[in-house]
């Protein structure tokens, strides 16, 4: 029997959007933090990227001197700030 290829992280990443779409379409989850309870989360000091130009520069300072890279946290906030 031919060996089965192992799933790689890359293939899992490619499948992730499909999984997210399925979750979004069939999950009637009630928000446990109501929009009117998000005052603190909407405060600018709670932003993961309060100063994008400064954060990007510091990422550059670190990545150009270190072996590691990626996943630096620039994935945003699911805050209902709008």
């Amino acid at each position: 029997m031919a060996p089965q290829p192992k799933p790689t992280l890359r293939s899992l990443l490619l499948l992730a959007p499909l999984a997210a779409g399925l979750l979004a379409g069939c999950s009637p989850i009630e928000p446990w933090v109501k929009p009117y309870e998000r005052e603190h989360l909407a405060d600018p000091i709670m932003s993961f990227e309060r100063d994008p130009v400064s954060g990007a520069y510091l990422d550059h300072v670190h990545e150009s001197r270190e072996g590691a890279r990626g996943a630096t946290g620039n994935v945003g906030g699911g805050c209902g700030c709008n």
Partner: protein
Amino acid sequence: MKAPKGCGPAIHKAQRPQLGALYAAAAALVGTAAKGGVLPDDRADLLYHSYSGGGVTINGTSLLVRKKVGDHVSLVGNWYTDSVSGASIDVVTQASPYKEKRSQGSLGVDLLLGKATYSAGYINGSEPDFRSRTAYASVSEDLFGDLTTITFGASRGWDKIGERGAPDFKATADRRNWSVGLSQVLTRNLLASLAVETSESEGYLQNPYRQARYLSGDPRGYSYEKEAYPHTRTGNAFAARAKYYLRWRAALDGNYRYYRDTWGIVAHTAELGYTLPAFHRWVFDAHARYYRQKQASFYADLFPYQGSQNFLARDRELAAFKELGLGFGASWELRPRHRGLLQKATFNLRYDNLRFKYDDFRDLRVQGAAAGTEPLYTLKANVLQLYVSAWF
């Protein structure tokens, strides 16, 4: 990159262009600013930056402008420059002091449709003997009552590497990145995010100027040979981050990242930050960052003889080391009495002190020590940022 000058066999540049990292950071800057179902604010940022450490000074500017067009489109542009001068330990021991200028421009667009934001952009950077182009795209969507934001991103880069003094030398490298991010509102005071990113590089991944050293009959006890890197590299990074709102209006944030790649590098990064608004118009920040990594499997400070391995490296970036960074920031907000074009502005200062301690990278500037017994190298660096941000 620098032009070699002087004479003798060791006149190679030892400062590899690190624009790949710069472009990755820039992609983050212009590519992930939009989050799910809201477009980012219209703003402009002008940054002066200065890095000084290990005999090298790097300073320059970065200008970022972001502007909405209608209700569904936001455009962003960034122009970054820096100027490198001085002589790092690599230059002192293998090459000659130099100066060079680097620049990078990028353009991006974010399109908001419902709860989803689609982003794409292009980044172009150049040095005298290095050029890089990067294209990226991502999509973010708010889910579950806007408590969750999920982001998928991909980028592709193309590098062209040259070498001063060797006009016939031309090499290329391709880069591919895929990322997934999840940001979650956990409580009315707590945000958390997870990020996974895998990166692949293929082609000429080394610095044409850097060299490995090996034991020899030379009077100093060692000689140099060209480095040889593998032509492929795959890395995976996983990061978790949380930010908590404290009841006296302050924020505490923590961040951890794990990284591992096919070159044998394993790295851990931990960060802790505290943000405190005070005196009505001021915001103060304090940050601490700890980083450590294991060396690449083909790295050695001193190889036993010439050509002892098929892959050879003596780059500090691939050595085992520990790094501690401490940073402080202050921001003052200007609120115009009559808001016309300018909604608000901030004047910002940030200072970081970095300390590197290498486990197996020796300071060859020390004379008289037998090869392989020189003291281990340490590096202290100061990073200063002054920037103005304006919302309009």
